[in-house]
């Protein structure tokens, strides 16, 4: 891989041992994946934030790390709401470790917005190169916003954030951004249907780049749900939601293929995987209007969006539902071993494996109905 003079100096340790190690990581990854050079990134987003996920191993590494990031960097969700952890039933031992992790990241100059939807906080420019690691955000950045990022692991995104560059391979290159399979859907879909579709399609196409053909163009919220599902059951990092030239390989799906909904009597109903947008909170508030929640209903969003939607959140919480920030239902100890109903293909995939939770998927309105027991 070609390195410029500054890269060589960093690799030689002239900016200190932390940046030197980070550069060694980027060079090794560049060699492994055949990159010709390093390219500057606009921002980074780092996974590996919940103490439930990274444990003592991650905390020890972060405790020894010094220095500061060189590009705007955000974090993935953690295992609890920074302020409402008591309401969530999180134990103090976990809280202490979790907050230690956040303090370590903050000491590196990272903006501790803990969200899987960093693009609501700041959307990347079209064609910008990024090092993001949250798989649904990677998919959204590549497919909806037209930016370019590989699906980074937490440690490699952190290395990129420290150096401000990433090796030029994978989805940074035009040649890997060409659709190689077409998915034809000739029946109407709405809302949570897209999460269900993503769940089904990811299992079929694994890491291919699909070109979709829909009856009507999906909303951005629907594309978010679709990408999240495909990234969870497959490793789809890029898809094309608009009509385009059909690939030679075409899959046609029937409505029955994506009807994976079921009803249940769950311990808890959880919405907001990925984190809710303002329009999704508006929809939930509308569905809850004038009703009372009789079964725990948790709604996850980013603190950034919550801070800007306080009256919506008051309306939602007046019904007995709880809106939490900073949190991913899957990496939080709060939802372990509890049966869950979700409106997300991604949560449907990870609930059983990572939370030991019996998980079912329903539409947003049937989730709200289940929580209100009507």
């Amino acid at each position: 891989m070609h390195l410029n003079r500054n890269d060589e100096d960093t690799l030689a340790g002239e900016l200190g041992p932390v940046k030197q190690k980070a550069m060694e990581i980027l060079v090794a990854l560049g060699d492994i994946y055949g990159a010709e050079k390093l390219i500057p990134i606009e921002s980074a987003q780092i996974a590996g934030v919940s103490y439930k996920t990274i444990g003592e191993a991650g905390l020890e590494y972060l405790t020894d790390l010094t220095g500061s990031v060189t590009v705007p960097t955000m974090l993935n969700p953690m295992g609890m709401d920074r302020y409402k952890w008591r309401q969530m039933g999180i134990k103090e031992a976990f809280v202490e470790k979790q907050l230690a992790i956040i303090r370590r990241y903050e000491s590196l100059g990272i903006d501790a917005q803990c969200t899987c939807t960093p693009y609501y906080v700041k959307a990347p420019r079209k064609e910008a190169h990024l090092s993001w690691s949250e798989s649904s955000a990677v998919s959204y950045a590549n497919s909806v916003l037209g930016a370019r990022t590989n699906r980074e692991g937490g440690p490699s995104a952190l290395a990129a954030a420290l150096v401000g560059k990433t090796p030029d391979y994978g989805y940074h290159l035009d040649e890997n951004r060409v659709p190689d399979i077409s998915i034809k859907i000739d029946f109407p879909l709405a809302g949570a249907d897209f999460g269900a579709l993503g769940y089904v399609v990811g299992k079929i196409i694994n890491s291919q780049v699909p070109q979709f053909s829909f009856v009507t163009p999906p909303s951005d919220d629907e594309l978010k749900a679709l990408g999240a599902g495909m990234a969870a059951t497959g490793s789809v990092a890029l898809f094309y939601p608009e009509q385009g030239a059909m690939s030679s390989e075409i899959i046609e799906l029937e409505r029955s293929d994506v009807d994976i909904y079921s009803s249940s009597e769950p311990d808890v109903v959880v919405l907001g995987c990925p984190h809710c947008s303002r329009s999704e909170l508006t929809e939930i508030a509308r569905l809850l209007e004038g009703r009372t929640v009789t079964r725990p209903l948790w709604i996850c969003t980013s603190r950034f969006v919550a801070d800007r939607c306080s009256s919506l959140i008051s309306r939602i919480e007046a019904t007995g539902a709880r809106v939490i920030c900073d949190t991913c239902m899957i990496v939080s100890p709060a939802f372990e071993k509890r049966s869950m109903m979700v409106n997300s293909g991604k949560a449907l995939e990870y609930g059983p494996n990572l939370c030991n939770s019996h998980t079912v998927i329903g539409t947003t309105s049937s989730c709200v109905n289940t929580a209100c027991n009507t």
Partner: protein
Amino acid sequence: MAFSMLQRIKGRIISKGIGEGSAVVTHQPLSFLGGVDPTQGVIKDPKHELYGTSIVGTILTFPQGKGSTVGSYVMYQLKRNGKAPAAIINVSSETIVAVGAIISNIPLIDRLEVDPIAAIKSGSRVFVNCVEGFIEVET
């Protein structure tokens, strides 16, 4: 046999350093998160063929990593606990083990001229030179 022969095999340096030890070889990929006990340096995945084997101070030879990227941090924890392998040989490295080896100062070499899984027997003495990019195997 009183005399042993040394076979020198060239490879690609992923993480710099020098290590020497007794080889532990498996043809199965390895997940450090959940697969290795970071306090004891022992393989703890009951489904792995190395289950129960210590990797402390060994030349750990496996095709490539798998599983969660948190595995990189588990490698760091192994090193901090003094339970890391002396060096790692991969057939073809991927991100998790590459990053883990670099942040932990564990020498890592891959893409050898011959398949290391076939060329190295568990228990044989191996010298890994990740400064010049070769290994030496006692045969």
